């Protein structure tokens, strides 16, 4: 457990950390986020004493870190930086083993660790151990950077924008790997980023900083739902609404309710007339008890319907239906596979609630993302 007690740091006149107090639980993936210059890196570096605070205390497992030997402390805390910083004069194996060697592990002990770690990130020992960093891709280099931090099994790992310089695809796969490794090895990770996507994806707890202070410390869900400050809402802008589209919305919110319906006994000519009047090219057919029966379109009537026949005789039943409470994602999938280009929304009692077309879905999502656009 890491505990900050009123930690402050200034450079000359400028106060960089203004009395930080917070706690990091063991095994948590904690992400520090905030605008550039807000003090994330400084906060991180006070943990392994690369920076000494002017006042306040940092307790690590209850011990005042100022009382610990800084070199020993750092050997017990993994550290990953954005510039990767693999030693170019050492092979992959030597780089990973560097901390175990500092700790005087014998080769019989560190070599199996190197093998195991390389396997963990899908880089077989035989192929990779004897390469030099310059012979690896950026993504592979940062994988090794992460492994170097893990090699002496430190319970805590600090990462300062470790994926900032990677392309989006590599970044994503590394995010997943690190998250998986963290869960598997039960590490406490303190991770700095300025990318909210990354924070939401990885964090158990997000610490939002601004101007050397913590604006909010909360789980991603909590922060999305109840951002404590307008700056946080702004940072999360698109995510907030994306989340509300994803999770909170149901079919009911995408559908239009003004829908043309007719009994299955309605005759062809009358139904054509009705559709023309309302300027639509299909309608819903109901059973006598008002439950959903099927659909007819002008095209089906033209090809099958002779004058005087009931539409129920040749209506189609291929249009997908969804329940009113169906979630956004499944609704979306059905809409996109629907041959007619729309889906029918049913109430629990199988009566028709409305229908969703691509246009009504797009409008509802647009509204959710950017507020009501067309009232």
């Amino acid at each position, binding site marked *: 457990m890491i505990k900050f007690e009123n930690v402050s740091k200034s450079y000359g006149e400028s106060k960089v950390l203004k009395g930080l107090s917070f706690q990091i639980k063991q095994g948590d993936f904690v992400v520090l986020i905030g605008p550039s210059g807000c003090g994330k890196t400084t906060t991180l570096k006070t943990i*392994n004493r*690369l920076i000494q605070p002017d006042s306040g205390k940092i307790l690590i497992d209850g011990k005042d870190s100022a009382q610990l030997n800084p*070199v*020993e*402390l*750092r*050997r*017990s805390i*993994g*550290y990953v*930086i954005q*510039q*990767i*910083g*693999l*030693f*170019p*004069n*050492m*092979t992959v194996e030597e780089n990973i083993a*560097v*901390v175990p060697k*500092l700790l005087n592990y014998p080769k019989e002990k560190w070599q199996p660790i190197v093998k195991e770690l390389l396997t963990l990130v899908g880089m077989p020992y035989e192929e990779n151990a004897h390469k*030099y*960093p*310059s*012979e690896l891709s950026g993504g592979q280099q940062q994988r090794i950077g992460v492994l*170097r*931090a893990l090699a002496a099994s430190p319970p805590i790992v*600090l990462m300062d924008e470790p994926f900032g310089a990677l392309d989006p695809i590599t970044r994503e796969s590394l995010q997943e790997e690190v998250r998986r490794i963290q869960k598997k090895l039960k590490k406490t990770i303190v991770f700095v980023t300025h990318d909210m996507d990354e924070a939401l994806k990885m964090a158990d707890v997000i610490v939002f900083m601004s101007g050397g202070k913590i604006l909010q410390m909360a789980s991603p869900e909590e922060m999305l739902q109840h951002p404590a400050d307008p700056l946080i809402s702004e940072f999360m802008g698109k995510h907030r609404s994306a989340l509300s589209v994803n999770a909170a919305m149901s079919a009911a919110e995408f559908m239009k309710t003004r829908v043309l319906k007719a009994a299955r006994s309605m005759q062809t000519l009358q139904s054509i007339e009705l559709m023309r009047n309302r300027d639509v090219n299909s309608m819903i057919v109901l059973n006598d008890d008002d439950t959903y029966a099927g659909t007819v379109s002008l095209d089906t009537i033209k090809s099958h319907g002779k004058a005087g026949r009931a539409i129920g005789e040749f209506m189609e039943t291929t249009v997908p239906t969804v329940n009113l409470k169906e979630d956004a994602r499944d609704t979306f999938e059905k809409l996109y596979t629907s041959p007619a280009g729309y889906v029918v929304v049913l109430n629990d009692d199988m009566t028709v609630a409305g229908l969703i077309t691509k246009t009504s879905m797009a409008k509802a999502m647009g509204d959710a993302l950017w507020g009501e656009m067309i009232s």
Partner: protein
Amino acid sequence: MTLIEFFIVNQKDILGCLIRHFQLVGISVTTGMLIAVPLGIFLTRVRRIAPLVLNFAGMIQTIPGLVMLGFALLLFGIGLLPALLVLSIYAILPILHNTYTGITEVEKSYIEAARGIGMTDSQILLKVELPLARSTIVGGIRTSTVFTVSWATLAGLIGAGGLGDLIWTGLSTYNTNFILAGAIPSAIVAVILSGLIHLIQKKLTPRGLKGVSA
């Protein structure tokens, strides 16, 4: 007498001068190294005064070799010692300069990573800074060696021997054979030593650093 005949007839003397020349160069470059590398490392720890020291060393370097020899002659008289002293001083600067810049130019991220994972200052020096600065430092040694080979010809003037002896004899007696017997081997020595150091350098450089720096 043709030049070739001259070489054959005087081979014993020429060989003697050549060996003495190697000794002059070897001793002064080694001394220069032993002083310059630790001093260069020290300067990287006290960067505030580093420019002062480096500028001072640079200034000494601009004093013409003959003037320095003159001083040495006045202070220590004729012989091997004053020559070695002057040559060693000249050998220092390229190595000092390269040691200092080699280490200060090591990328900050390596140092930060090294400190962050728990290396002590001396481990950072030995495991990161020196290996990464090595090719620059060896480059300084190479420069220093090549220069010393030619400066050492001046040593003949104050009776320290070496290939310079032949050149000065030739100059004072208008004997071209003597001049060439000193000049040609010293040129060859310079090229050979430079090539040799380069070769050792390449052999020692790990694959990961090849093509990264010269």
